[in-house]
């Protein structure tokens, strides 16, 4: 098992500060996702871990050994690229054999003509390993083909295979699924998770797709502007974000934000609706109230905390329907998740009432920092594990 430790990594390209001091401990065998919008520095961080970029400051330790100054080839890490980056002139088998040849054969074995003769036995052993991996990935029939003759999904598997044959300390993956079509992407998510369990190796996975991060990771690091905003399990990130930007980035459809107020007693209210719990030691002033679509419910006008609104659009996803609602004067659009059978009667223009679920509101101050309630009971504990 291998442990990666990143300390104080910074990197700038010219004037742009891409990474602003990243500290990250990656546990042996975990599936860690670096997720964030494009330009947040996640790919640069991965390339620094890989050894393809040199950090301006900071150190990288692999199993306690400082690898910051080692070349990519010497770090015992394997990478899967978004574009797959297969050698176009080599067959699938040769593609998968290349890293093995470069690592496991001496220089005599790599000679152009004599090499294959001198290292017959070793090559046979390496080829056997390629076949084993191909078996696992179910690409054995493709071994003789060139990458140009493969579909996107098949190339993806070959790229994985090329990484797997080496049995590296960790797998680095740079948006490996983003070139696949939607159905295949969902399928490959499950397969990658399965592969991670089967191999028991560390996976460091970069994506801009929060759904991929939520579904596959053991832990996910949400990055923005060259910093890690929050590092935790997907469930905690979703239910208990400590920053407004994290709350907004994770979850689809996005979290609803409503303007609220804190009074001098620490009581919070939004749109005239007071919350039950009080904030501890928060300054008086405006705040943002975050409510996820599944935490808003249809209500009757009699209920005291109900807000009236008008349906502007109904997004039917089969089992659930997302209702787009303009609250009150129409200035505050929100989305709520409703069972499709209930939503069937609600056409755009319908007047409805909405209330939030108890204990579901997330409060953020003007700078986007999360404000905690006095009695800290997070709903995360009650949520089933995300799969």
């Amino acid at each position, binding site marked *: 098992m291998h442990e990666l430790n990143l300390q104080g990594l910074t990197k700038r390209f010219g004037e742009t500060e891409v990474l602003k001091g990243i500290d990250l401990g990656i546990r042996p065998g975990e599936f860690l996702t670096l997720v964030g919008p494009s330009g947040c520095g996640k790919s640069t961080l991965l*390339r620094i871990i*890989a*050894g*393809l970029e040199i950090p301006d400051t900071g150190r990288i330790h692999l199993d306690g050994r400082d690898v910051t100054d080692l*070349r*990519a*080839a010497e770090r015992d*890490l*394997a*990478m899967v*690229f*978004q*574009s*797959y*980056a*297969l*050698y*176009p*002139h080599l067959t699938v088998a040769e593609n998968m054999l*290349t*890293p093995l040849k*470069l*690592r496991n054969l001496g220089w005599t074995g790599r000679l152009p003509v004599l090499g294959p003769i001198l290292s017959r036995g070793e090559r046979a052993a390496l080829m056997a390993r390629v076949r084993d991996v191909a078996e696992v990935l179910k690409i054995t029939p493709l071994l003789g083909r060139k990458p140009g003759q493969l579909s996107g999904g098949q190339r993806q598997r070959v790229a994985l295979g*090329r990484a797997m044959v080496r049995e590296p300390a960790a797998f680095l993956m740079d948006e490996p699924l983003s070139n696949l079509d939607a159905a295949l992407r969902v399928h490959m998510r499950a397969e990658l998770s399965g592969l991670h369990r089967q191999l028991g190796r560390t996976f460091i996975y970069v994506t801009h797709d929060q759904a991929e991060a939520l579904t596959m990771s053991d832990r996910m690091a949400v990055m923005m502007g060259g910093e890690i905003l929050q590092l935790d399990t997907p469930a905690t990130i979703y239910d208990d974000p400590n920053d407004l930007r994290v709350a907004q980035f994770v979850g689809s459809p996005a979290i609803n934000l409503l303007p609220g107020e804190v009074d001098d007693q620490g009581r919070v209210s939004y749109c005239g609706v007071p919350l039950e719990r009080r904030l501890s030691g928060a300054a008086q002033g405006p705040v943002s109230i975050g409510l996820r679509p599944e935490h808003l419910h249809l209500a009757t006008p009699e209920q005291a905390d109900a807000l009236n609104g008008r349906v502007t659009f109904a997004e039917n996803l089969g089992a659930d329907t997302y209702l787009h609602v303009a609250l009150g004067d129409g200035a505050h659009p929100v989305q709520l998740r409703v069972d499709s059978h209930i939503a069937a009667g609600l056409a755009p223009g319908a007047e409805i009432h909405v209330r939030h679920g108890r204990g579901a509101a997330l409060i953020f101050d003007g700078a986007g920092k999360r404000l905690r309630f006095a009695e800290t009971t997070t709903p995360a504990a009650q949520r089933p594990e995300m799969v």
Partner: protein
Amino acid sequence: MSDPAINAQAAPLTFRFDWIETLKHAVLIVGALIVLLPFYVMLSYSLKSQAEIEGRLPTGFFGAQQMTVDERCVARGAPDRDAIAAAATRFPGASEREIANALAREVEASCMARPVVYNYTTAFTEAPLLRYLLNGIIVTASIFLIQVLVALPCAYALAKLRFWGREAVFGLVLFCLLIPVHAIALPLYVGLSKFGLTNTYAALVVPWTISVFGIFLMRQFFMTVPDDLIDAARMDGMSEYAIVWKVMLPTAIPALMAFGIFSVVAHWNDYFWPRIVITGDRSLFTPPLGIREFRSDLDGSLYGPMMATACVIVTPLIVAFLVAQRRFIEGITLSGMK
């Protein structure tokens, strides 16, 4: 078919006179004639006898192909005293003069040949044309090989490695593209002669080994190779040199073909540089120098063999072009686009 409606519909497809198209073709045909005419003359002269060429006899493209006597051959074979004495046994009772005349007739008979045969045999026997062709192959092949050895790593560095001053170096490459060869021929010659390299293969090859055009062309092509591929090779454990030869070279084959065509054509046909650095040693002559063989002797130029030589010299390139026509055009458009 008899339906008049169908015929009426088909009519526009059959033929319609179009001035623009006609003009285009006329211009192209005239252009083609201008380009092809020298080749026509070259080929035609290589088939004709000296008399037909100099007398401008109206014997068509192929000439009359009448048996002609090779004056040089006769002059070389003219019987001397020893030959007459030796032949005395064959002509018993004949006088010395009669023997001499008989021998001269024999020589003349053996020197009779059809012009086409004479021209081409002379081209290959009087001048070591095969040797020239071999020299041409040696020189163009070594130039191209070394150019690739130099240009590929340079182009890779300029396209894919980040180092201080890269843009300046690339600027220098572009600047060197603007320098005409003839401008630096004299200093180059002086330099080579100081090293004692004139009249060697090295003099023919060395000045061309660093091709800025090659560096430029390959650099432009390498810019289009995705960075991920190179990073993947680095992760797989390849050194930078291994990346150049094992990853970049195979992906750059089309660009390399284009460059190869330019390089080989330019150096196979080059007359200027070999003419300067190869002054004495005929065994180092390249094919274009072979044409000089039959030029301006005291008894006038031998146009027949000279044109035969020219035909032999251009044939390899023309054959290569016909075989690789598509590659050729691809190559020229590729380098034109970049």
